[in-house]
């Protein structure tokens, strides 16, 4: 893990409000596993001051790291002002990633919106496995096309309003697909907004399918030091009442999380 100024190679819009930033870091490119994240310092001033966490969405060759991000507030807005050639302070790779997909199983990657980011990296690193990549968006205009971000991932799309692909939530699409396989032969990996994660978990629970969830919370340190990033744990599965997303996560077994609290 490093904290370094990294040179930005490109920072371009790839979908509405969605950008792909590429920077150079041999250390992170070689070390990172899918599901891990980095903390980026947005600017020199102190508004905003805290770093922002972003999943690694892929690496290129020996030293290029890629982040796919959506503009939702001042930090992500500030990030769009960075140009190729500028430097950015990067801390990472951080956290625990996804466990490696079993090549003998049917692996379902289920993305909600920008949650596609870590799953693209998981896909990239596991091309030989049997991967079903499902991703949900609110509407066709918001679809993030992996191709524009430099990925050859083929994904089945669901849109809430039915304007493209499967008509409905991605969990509906998942339910349809899961029916076709035996639970013991399947595994789900998911990332997206909290309500969607909960729906995916419910579906997996119903079908008795194991599921790894990538969680999001506010973070300050990213290093397990501040204890700011906790989620409630399911005390029937875990001994401690809270789990630290930055250190024990961001990827968790769905059974370790208390999905009723928020």
């Amino acid at each position, binding site marked *: 893990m490093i*904290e370094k100024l990294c040179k930005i190679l490109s920072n371009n819009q790839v979908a509405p409000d969605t950008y792909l930033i590429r920077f150079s870091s041999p250390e992170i490119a070689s070390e990172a596993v899918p599901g891990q994240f980095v903390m980026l310092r947005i600017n020199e001033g*102190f508004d905003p001051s805290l770093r922002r966490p972003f999943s690694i969405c892929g690496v290129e060759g020996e030293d290029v790291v890629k982040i796919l991000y959506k503009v939702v507030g001042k930090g992500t807005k500030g990030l769009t002002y960075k140009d190729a050639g500028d430097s950015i302070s990067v*801390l990472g790779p951080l956290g625990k990633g996804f466990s490696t997909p079993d090549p003998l199983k049917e692996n379902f990657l289920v993305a909600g919106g920008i949650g596609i980011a870590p799953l693209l990296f998981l896909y990239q690193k596991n091309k030989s496995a049997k991967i079903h990549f499902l991703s949900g968006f609110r509407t066709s205009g918001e679809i993030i096309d992996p191709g524009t971000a430099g990925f050859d991932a083929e994904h089945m799309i669901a849109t809430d309003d039915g304007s493209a692909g499967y008509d409905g939530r991605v969990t509906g699409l998942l339910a349809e697909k899961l029916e076709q396989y035996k639970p013991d032969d399947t595994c789900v990996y998911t990332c997206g907004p909290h309500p969607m994660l909960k729906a995916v978990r419910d579906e997996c629970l119903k079908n008795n399918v194991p599921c790894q969830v990538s969680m999001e919370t506010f973070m*300050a340190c990213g290093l397990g*030091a*501040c204890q*700011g990033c*906790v989620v*409630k744990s399911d005390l029937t599965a875990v001994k401690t009442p809270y789990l630290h997303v930055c250190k024990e996560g961001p990827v968790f077994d769905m059974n370790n999380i208390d999905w009723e609290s928020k």
Partner: protein
Amino acid sequence: MTDGPDISVKLGNLNLKNPVMTASGTFGYGKEFDSVIDLNRLGGIVVKGISLKPMPGNPPPRIVETPAGMLNAIGLANLGIDGFLKEKLPFLKTLDTKTIVNIYGHSIDEYAELAGVLKGVDGVDAVEINISCPNVDKGGLVFGKDPEVSARVTEAVAGNTDKPVIVKLTPNVSEITVLAKAVEQAGADCISLINTLTGMAIDIETGKPKLGNVSGGLSGPAIKPVALHMVYQAAKAVKIPVIGIGGIMTAEDAIEFLIAGASAVQVGTANFVNPKASIDIIDGLIKYCERKGIGSIQEITGSINVDK
């Protein structure tokens, strides 16, 4: 240059190789930053506040960013004194820096007991008393808001320890000097300030507080001017050394606190923004001394020039 400036400082009988410590709650138990910086360069590490029993902490969300600062309501989550001694202290003992244990209790007796447990423990170089927490015996009133109660906590700890005692003051008071003098008289070897200012934030879409605990503590550059003024006032009011804390992000900030009267500083929120902040500050202090021809950093302490 073979002979750099002398940046070591003496806080009573606690000697630090340089005046830069990391602040409680922002640096875990040291280990968390091990792969990012050389911990042996630090003047000291103040560990996360420790209580007698393990504490789970507050429900999330526990942090929220604010302009040039952040609010936290961690709820003093920690693994308890026994867990600390068993799981965390051994690593800290391997380091060439000072370990300061920040303690908090829910009653005066708990503070005294904590001091007792730490008595004679090798590898613990000082005790810092966090009095910015609710006093169960007094219906949840914060200990540190009452100078008399603060004095009694100080006495209880000082009377039950063989370590230097640092009392960490809350800024949420009318007269910081009254508090500072009260704990000095009660036997504090040193005071540190400031802890966080109480604040809150509200989500206007839901009408709910943004912190699970409703209110929290404000830290970061936003509070630096307030911290600096309190350190200035406190340093004039007491004879014991003062440790400056609050929004210190750079060497320049640290120097302001030294000039105002601090003998050392603690770096908190800066560790999140720049995990190397403490090291950058140490380097900056050395450069400043060199540029200004200052032989010993202790000369800076209290050198403020207030002639109008």
